[in-house]
């Protein structure tokens, strides 16, 4: 479960969002500049809200009234950025292993092989991120986030930097991830078609406010 009720002032822009989602994939939908990335960064702990509460999986990770702010590294979240952000000085294998090492998790070969198979990245393991295509990079980034065993996976327009062909290449992996990985996700996108395929619940953002909340039907013009 994810509960968000926050206010954040960013220059002239006010982000004020409240929703509670039980969905397996919560889609954050809105035009660019609607505050989607700021909101997901607040959930991740990279940005601190001016006021309000964030709860992940029953744990309060932000509560300004009680002075609670759990730093990002202790939130046990996975974050897939639009620009992958693989560590350029590490091999794909080392990138994949990073979260496990940092969280001091025991080596789980079975899970590792499952994720590698799920994302079809077995042939890339010895390479450096500089030698990967955009789509490959994004798949490795997904694997890296998953292998840290997060309790919530945040995806900020993971297909945003890819062309149509690459998007179609990654989308099936995301669907498999949703159905097989068993980790709740928050999926940020400005593409309604993408969210219709992936999301189970939609939070619609406009100019920093939640304008509607519900099933994917809120994405269709008639559902407004």
């Amino acid at each position, binding site marked *: 479960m994810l509960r968000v009720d926050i206010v954040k002032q960013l220059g002239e822009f006010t982000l004020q969002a409240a929703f509670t989602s039980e969905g397996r994939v919560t889609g954050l939908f809105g035009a660019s500049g609607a505050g989607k990335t700021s909101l997901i960064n607040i959930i991740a702990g990279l940005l601190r809200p001016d006021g309000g509460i964030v709860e992940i999986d029953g744990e309060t990770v932000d509560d300004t009234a009680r002075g609670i702010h759990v730093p990002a*590294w202790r939130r046990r979240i996975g974050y897939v950025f639009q620009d992958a952000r693989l*560590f350029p*000085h590490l091999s794909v294998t080392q990138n994949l292993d990073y979260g496990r090492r*940092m*969280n001091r998790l025991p080596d789980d070969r079975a899970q590792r092989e499952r994720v590698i198979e799920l994302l079809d990245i077995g042939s890339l393991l010895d390479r450096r*991120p*500089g030698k990967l295509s955009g789509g490959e990079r994004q798949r490795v980034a997904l694997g*890296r*986030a998953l292998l840290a065993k997060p309790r919530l996976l945040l995806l900020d327009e993971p297909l945003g930097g890819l062309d149509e062909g690459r998007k179609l290449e990654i989308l099936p992996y995301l669907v498999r991830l949703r159905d097989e990985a068993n980790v709740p996700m928050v999926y940020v996108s400005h593409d309604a078609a993408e969210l219709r395929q992936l999301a189970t619940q939609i939070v619609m953002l406009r100019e920093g406010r939640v304008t509607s909340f519900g099933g994917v039907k809120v994405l269709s013009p008639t559902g407004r």
Partner: protein
Amino acid sequence: MFEISPTEWTAILLSLRVAVVATLVATPLGIGLAWLLARHDFWGKSLVDALVHLPLVLPPVVTGYLLLLTLGRRGLVGSWLADHLGIVFAFRWTGAAVACGIMSFPLLVRPIRLSIEAIDRKLEQAAETLGAPPWQVFLTVTLPLALPGVLAGMVLGFAKAIGEFGATITFVSNIPGETQTISSAIYALIQTPDGDAAAGRLVIISIAIALGALVAAEWFARRATARVHGN
């Protein structure tokens, strides 16, 4: 002609020892300070920045004299260190290392700071979301990515340290076998009537060391850069 005398050898080895020790001790401090200046805003930051650069603009003899006043036997810090810990810098090779470390510090810090500033903070954020506490982010992401800058800083610092003259001779004098580095040996030799040949040999050797350091720096920097860019 190229018979290196024992005295010259002593000066050469001492110079190397002083420069190596100065660089190795100054590097962790330089990395810490470069990181602080590159990644943090704090009260008095411009003052710290100015202090780091001071040895670059002060006459070396002034830096040496200030060192003598503070770290000398009767200096404020020096007398305390001598009485309580038995550490003496004045007129010792360790004092030469201190002088060289301070004189080379600005050159060491600058490339490290620039390379830390050039690192995409988004990578550090990514590490954080993967569960890395701040010190691990530094050790596993920031530092490896700054490695070309660290190596460049170390080589520049080493080159400066091995050639340092003014502050060293002021602080620890020119004692053969203890504080007489290549530079101060050359200085002493060109003041003696028949010292030209020996001075010439030391000049050639310092040129060779300097060139060697530059070539090594280039090689390390190229390897490290290739590594960082993921090729």
